């Protein structure tokens, strides 16, 4: 599903690469934690998958496509197959829950009948039954993140990228968020989650990839946050 072949990314005006000769594979349906201190290259990794950045060297394949050969006007097609969740939710404050989720489908030109059918389903899936007409500022942080997840998942992407989705949320609420991510993963969606949250990583026992100074220093199935046992 995601394939990195000796990928190096150096940002302009920086001597140290953000990622350095990274080789790794993420299979379809996997759940992967991406851990490491700030500045270790987690966000760069996610941005490369979305093709918001291009690698300085190496090759990246996402959902069977060679990103180097992807023309600019085909990038939207790629992004329709990838859902994204962020630490800061990124909801539209002027739209209610239903409209926020529907927006993701409207802007890719889906018919209204289809939107009316799938949006309530996804809102239910993330556990926000009956809250479709709430505005974002009437919701708790955990609920807002659920809306963001509904928006990321509503188009049934093959990959869901989550950049510290529990970063702004207390531990108790985080468990609920992780349950939703797990539910999404069980539908066959590949999930890549960058996080600092050791408790969550330890409790889920999924594959863990640790980055340090742009290099993969650990890749462990059923791993934990800290150093390997």
């Amino acid at each position, binding site marked *: 599903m995601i394939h990195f072949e000796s990928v190096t990314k150096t940002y302009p005006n920086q001597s140290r690469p953000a990622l350095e000769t990274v080789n790794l594979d993420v299979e379809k349906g996997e759940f992967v934690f991406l851990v490491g201190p700030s500045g270790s290259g987690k966000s760069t990794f996610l941005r490369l998958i979305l093709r918001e950045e291009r690698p300085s060297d190496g090759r990246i394949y996402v959902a069977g496509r060679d990103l180097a050969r992807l023309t600019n006007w085909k990038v*939207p097609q790629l992004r329709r*197959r990838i859902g994204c969740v962020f630490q800061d939710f*990124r909801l539209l404050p002027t739209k209610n829950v239903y409209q926020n989720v529907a927006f993701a489908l409207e802007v*890719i030109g889906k018919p*209204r009948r289809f939107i009316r059918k799938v949006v309530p389903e996804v809102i239910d899936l993330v556990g926000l039954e009956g809250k479709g007409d709430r505005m974002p500022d009437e919701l708790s942080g955990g609920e807002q993140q659920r809306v963001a997840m509904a928006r990321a998942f509503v188009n049934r992407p093959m990959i869901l990228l989550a950049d510290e989705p529990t970063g702004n949320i207390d531990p108790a609420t985080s468990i609920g968020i992780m349950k939703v991510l797990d539910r999404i993963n069980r539908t066959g969606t590949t999930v890549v989650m960058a996080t600092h949250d050791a408790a969550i990583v330890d409790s889920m026992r999924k594959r863990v990839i640790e980055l340090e100074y742009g290099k993969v220093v650990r890749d462990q199935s059923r791993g934990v946050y800290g150093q390997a046992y």
Partner: protein
Amino acid sequence: MRAQFVFGEVWVGLRRNLTMTVALIVVVAISLSLLGTGLLFVKQVDHTRSLWQSRLDLSVYLCSAVNPDQNCAKNGPVTQAEKAQIHHTLVSLPQVDHVWFQSQQQAYAQAKQLFANEPVMLSFVEPGDLPASFEVKMKNAQADAGPVTAAVLGQPGVDSVGDDGVILTKFYQLLDGARNAVIVVAIILIIAAILLVANTIRLSAFNRRRETAIMRLVGASNFYVQLPFLVEGMIAGLIGWLIATGLLAAAQAGLDGLQQYFPFPVALSTADLIEVVLVTMLIGLVLCGSTSFLTLRRYLRV
């Protein structure tokens, strides 16, 4: 393609940006109507020019007994033979349509008519003072005046050649100057309009940066991301153009009203107005559309 969605976004964009949109509409309206006025001016001058061109004469003034000018001082008043020679020269020129003779008495009668309101002026003039002349009608007054003048000037008995065109040329220079001034101001305003379009789109892009970021993230095509902005710019341009059209129609009606004071058929037709209005629409659309597009390329890189 979800038209309702796109227009919903456009409406929100226009409303959030209301002051900027209004400024844009006003500037587009004024610059387009000034440009249109300039174009109407050009047409009016063309109409007038072609009307007068067909009425222009050359007057070949002949020496009279009282004429003190250099040419005549040598030879004295024109003789019958010289007169016949001048007439012959004129009618044999290919540019000349026809020639007729105006005697001193006729010239005096015409002067009496022209200066009927100025008896003081007339009191200084006596029938013998005004020279006789050959009045020459040319096939193409503008082009032919030069060669015809050259052919007869200096011939014995010829005093000087008067070209009506010279007077009109000054008049035309005035009109052309006014027209150029209008067009220069219009161009300056159009530059202001272009900058305003760019700024409005930029502001609009900034206002909608959250929406745009999400659209890019969920894979909206460039077309979908940019369309609301393009349509926004176009709608503002279009409203500006409609106002300009109204102003131009009013201007033409005003000019038409003035026509009744002149006995000459030089009024602009409705076809002229429509042509000018269509040209301004084209300029407005190209201007707003291309500026929006270029600004978007700069600020909404996907």
